[in-house]
Structures are given as C-alpha cells and as structure tokens.
C-alpha cells in the first residue's frame, strides 16, 4: 500500500497528487478519530475541533513568522507545523477531562457541544481568528510549493504517525482500550483506571488530529472556521465507516474511497451530497463493517477454520455494547 502511495506523483498531471495529499491528510484525521471509535468504542461528533485547532495554531504561528513579503524560511515553516499538535493536545486534555465522564450518546453530544462552541468562538472572534474570513496566504517555502515534494513530505509524516499509532494500539495500553470498549464495567472491576485511560486516548487522538490539521493549512494555503464544524467531524466518521472501523487501516481505505469519489463526482455534478449520501445508505444497509468488513468476510469464507490469526484487531467494534 505504501508503494502504491509512493507512486501517485507519477500519475499524469498535478491533479492526482493534490487528491493524494488530501487523502493522506484526511486519512490521518480519520485514523485519529478511529482511536476513539474503533478502539475505545465512543463516537465523537466534535473531533474536527482538534483538526481545526491544530490548523489554526499552525496558521497563526506561520503568519507571525513570515516576512512582510509573504515568504517563510524552511525552519520557521517546520516550527509552525510543530505548533499544531501540542495546542490540539492541550485542548483535548481540557475537553477530554469532561467528555470521558460520559459514554454513548452523551459522549457524542458533549463532544458535539464543545466542537460547535469552539466553531462559533473562532467564527465570531474576528480580532483573534479573522472570523469567517479565515487566514489566507499560507504559502510554504519554495521547496514545499512543488506539489510532488509536499506530497512526499506529507506521506513521510503520515507514515511515521501511523507507525506510532500502530504501536500504541498494539501496546498494553491499546489492549486496555479495547477492554474498555467491550466491557467498561468489567475493566473497572479488574482495577483499570477507566477515566485515565480514556482521557489519555482522547489526548492522543486529539494530538494526531492536530497534526493532520497542521498539514492542512500549508496544503490548502488557508484555514477557515469550517474546519472545526461538525460537518468536518462527519467526514472522519464517514471515512471510518466506509473503510471499516474494525481494521487498523480502515479509515485510510475509507479516505481513499471518499476523497477520490469526491474528486471525480465533483467534476461532473453539483450533487455530491446526494452521491455520498446514497453510498453511505448502501453501506449501512448492506455492508456493515465497511469495505474491509466485506474483504474480511470473504477471507473468512475462504478458510473457515483460521479465525484466530487474522489481522483483525478490532473486530466487531461496539457490537457487545448492550442497549436497553
């Protein structure tokens, strides 16, 4: 898969390189969302808040560091990228402190409320955030203006981030998170500090979302309050469910499908929502578990007895959640 990604810039035209960069950035964002959903069993409707905060932190430092002519040095550029994740992490620590006290629909509602509140604050605080004008003119240094170079730069960061994420999900901490997803009460009986684990994971997820946001500003040359809104959070949810929350790389697969489909459909019609809405409808009704869920069932059918060794770390996300 990495090889396929590395080959993207060889495709004719810059268009697919741009789409590829978008796939990577949103894929990372969706992956960070899946830390909460696939591994911890909680659905967040405000995850874009951290994506947006990361983007704004980078954009603001970027604007402060660039010269009056609008240029920015490579060191300053990298420094401004580094601003995104820690600021997003700090926000996630504060918001997560309250959110991890709740689960299920209440967790979803509280994350939505925090996200929307931040959206309206960024939207209306003109003197600090430039309001709905957003921050423009985030032109990276000459080397990164080349779309191929920026693509490889993004690819390297995303691969590194995914590697770290993978280590986290396979660590004892990651296993504990899955226990929390499957049976929180039992985990508490076993002496797990449930809230501390959930909070730590919330901060980790927020940090990676902030990293994705930090990359977004220089890529699109601007940031706007919409990045924090719940429509943006919805994109992470869509990608994750299209690809499949049950597999580690599910969200990336979802991002490939979603972003490419969007790029192609938008060339022909303004009815993109109708298209993606129908796709989601079909997936929910006929392919629960997403695309990788289908692949996995096919594989299982092919070798009926070999169920234990499959790369299926998060099978049945939330299935055991009891409903009254």
């Amino acid at each position: 898969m990495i090889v396929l990604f590395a080959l993207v810039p060889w495709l004719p035209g810059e268009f697919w390189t741009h789409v590829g960069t978008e796939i990577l950035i949103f894929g990372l964002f969706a992956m960070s969302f899946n830390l909460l959903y696939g591994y911890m069993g909680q659905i967040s409707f405000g995850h874009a808040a951290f994506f947006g905060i990361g983007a704004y932190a980078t954009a603001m430092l970027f604007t402060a560091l660039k010269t009056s002519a609008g240029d920015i040095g490579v060191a300053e550029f990298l420094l401004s990228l580094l601003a995104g994740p820690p600021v997003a992490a700090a926000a996630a620590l504060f918001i997560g402190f309250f959110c991890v006290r709740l689960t299920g629909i209440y967790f979803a509602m509280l994350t939505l409320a925090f996200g929307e509140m931040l959206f309206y604050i960024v939207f209306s605080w003109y003197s600090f955030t430039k309001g709905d004008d957003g921050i423009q003119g985030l032109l990276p240094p000459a080397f990164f203006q080349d779309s191929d170079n920026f693509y490889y730069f993004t690819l390297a960061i995303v691969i590194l981030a995914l590697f770290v994420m993978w280590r986290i999900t396979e660590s004892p901490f990651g296993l504990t998170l899955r226990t929390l997803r499957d049976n929180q009460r039992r985990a508490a009986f076993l002496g797990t500090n449930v809230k501390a684990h959930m909070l730590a994971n919330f901060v980790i997820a927020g940090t990676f979302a902030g990293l994705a946001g930090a990359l977004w500003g220089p890529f699109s040359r601007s940031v706007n309050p919409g990045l924090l809104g719940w429509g943006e959070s919805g994109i992470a949810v869509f990608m994750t469910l299209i690809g499949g929350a049950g597999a580690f790389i599910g969200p990336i697969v979802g991002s490939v499908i979603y972003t490419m489909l969007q790029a192609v459909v938008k060339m022909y019609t303004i009815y993109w929502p109708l298209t993606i809405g129908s796709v989601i409808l079909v997936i929910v009704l006929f392919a629960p578990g997403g695309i990788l869920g289908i692949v996995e069932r096919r594989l299982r059918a092919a070798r009926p007895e070999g169920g234990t060794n499959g790369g299926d770390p998060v099978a049945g996300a939330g299935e055991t959640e009891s409903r009254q």
Partner: protein
Amino acid sequence: MDIAPYLLQLFSGLSRAMVLFLLSAGLSLIFGVMNILNFAHATLWLISGYVTYSLFTFLSEQFGASPWMLLPAIAGAVALMSLAGFALERFLIRHTYERELPEQLLLTFALVLILGDVIKLVWGLENRRINLGVEPMEMFDTLVNPYQFVIIGTGVAVGAGLWYFLHRTRFGKIVRAAVYSRSMVSALGIRIPVIYSMVFALGVGLAALASGVFLPLLPMSLGMDLDIIVQCFAVVVIGGFGSMLGTFVASIIVGVVYSFSILFWPDGALAMIFLILIAVLIWRPWGLFGTELRS
C-alpha cells in the same frame, strides 16, 4: 429603563422557542420510543417547508390569493409528510433497530445529504418564503409582528394537546409505556411495529406543522436544517430525553437565551447555547427533567 427592545427580543425568542419545541418534541418522542436519534428530522422539516410553500402557491393560484390559504396548505403538508414519515420508518429506518448507534446515526445522516439535494433538484437554490402581508402592531411603544403571537399560541396549544394525547388517550399511554419497556408492551399483545411507524409519522407531522407556521416569519433556505438540528439536539438533551415538559422548558431556554445573546454577541449567540448544553451535560447528563434511569 426602556424595556421595549428587550420585549421585542423576548417575543422573537419565544416564537423561535416554539418552532424548536415542535421539532424537538418529535425528535424526543422518536428517540424515546425507538432509540433512534434522527439526524434527518430537521431536513424533513425543511422539505415540508418547501412543500407547504408549493401548496400555498398552488392554492393561491387556483382559488385566489388569501393569507387563509396557509391553513389548508399546512394541513396538506402535515398529511403528506406524516405519510412520508410512515413510509420512511416502514421501509428504511426499521432495518437499523438491531444495529449499533453509529450506524443508525449514519443512516439518518445519509438521509440529510440525500434529501438536501432532493430539495436542490426540485426547488432549486432560491429561498422560499410566504408573505402574509401582516402589518406590524404597535405595542409597548414599539412595533411587534403580531404573527409571532400566532406561533407562540400554536406552540403552547400543540404542547397542551401532546400532553393530553400522551397522558389521557389509550394510544398515548401505549407510546409512553413503550418508552419504558418495549418488550413488556409487546408482551401485552400490542403490535410494536405499528406503534413505531405511527410515532415516526407523528414526529414528522409535528415537524411539518412547525415549518408551516414558521414560513411567514423566516424564509426557508438550503442548509438551514443543519443549524436547526444541532439546536434541537441541544434542546432534547438539556430537557432530558423522553421528557415532554423538559423539552418544552429547554426550548424556551434555548430560544430566549439565543435571542438575547444576539443583542450582545451577534455571531456567537449559538456558542451560548452550546455552553448551556455543556454545563447541563457535565452537571446532569440526563437533562433537567429527565430521569437518570435511561442514561
């Protein structure tokens, strides 16, 4: 102190509150009975606004223009949308009862996207509004749009009617019982699937009524449903899932706080609502009038 501007904000806040109440009441009922959080509720509200508009225009052309044509237009839209709601539950929503919460949310959100584009396909990008030609009325040394009182009256009347329905009629009692225990109601020989479709139709009908009375006050525009649905979520959670009284009180809180915040912080008024929502979720996650039982 001049109280006139505050009274103006109070009336517009209350009329806003009543629209939110009509919507949230349906949302809360549907969630209470079927455990489905219907993202598409406000989109159905938006569609029925366009339907009401078209019916109103059609009736005005056929029988001469008159503000009273709004009444049959609303009645027609409520009937049509209730039927549509019945069908939607019967053929689509029903397949997700056994699924997890995120998948249900995703299904109703897919409907938001699809129906939003259906509006674009059928009615285009223009805003739709009905002008009843109501003259502003002089009250408290200022001008008030008397139509706001029609909305407030409708909201209160429907609230009272809903209370009567839920507490005094047989069907209403079954619905309330279903909120507590679906399996018990089913065990008593009541056909739960029929109840589900009826409740969904009722909820959508209330939304259609809300958009009908709302049309002469504000134009319907694309994308409005997304703003409204998150506010309805706020109302339902602040009031407490399944509590009709809570929904009513929370609607008034949200509507009035919004219209007063607009005076001080025009772009950020909605942030105030989410601040209240955050406070309620932290302090009493089950809402002001809800019971801890279902949390």
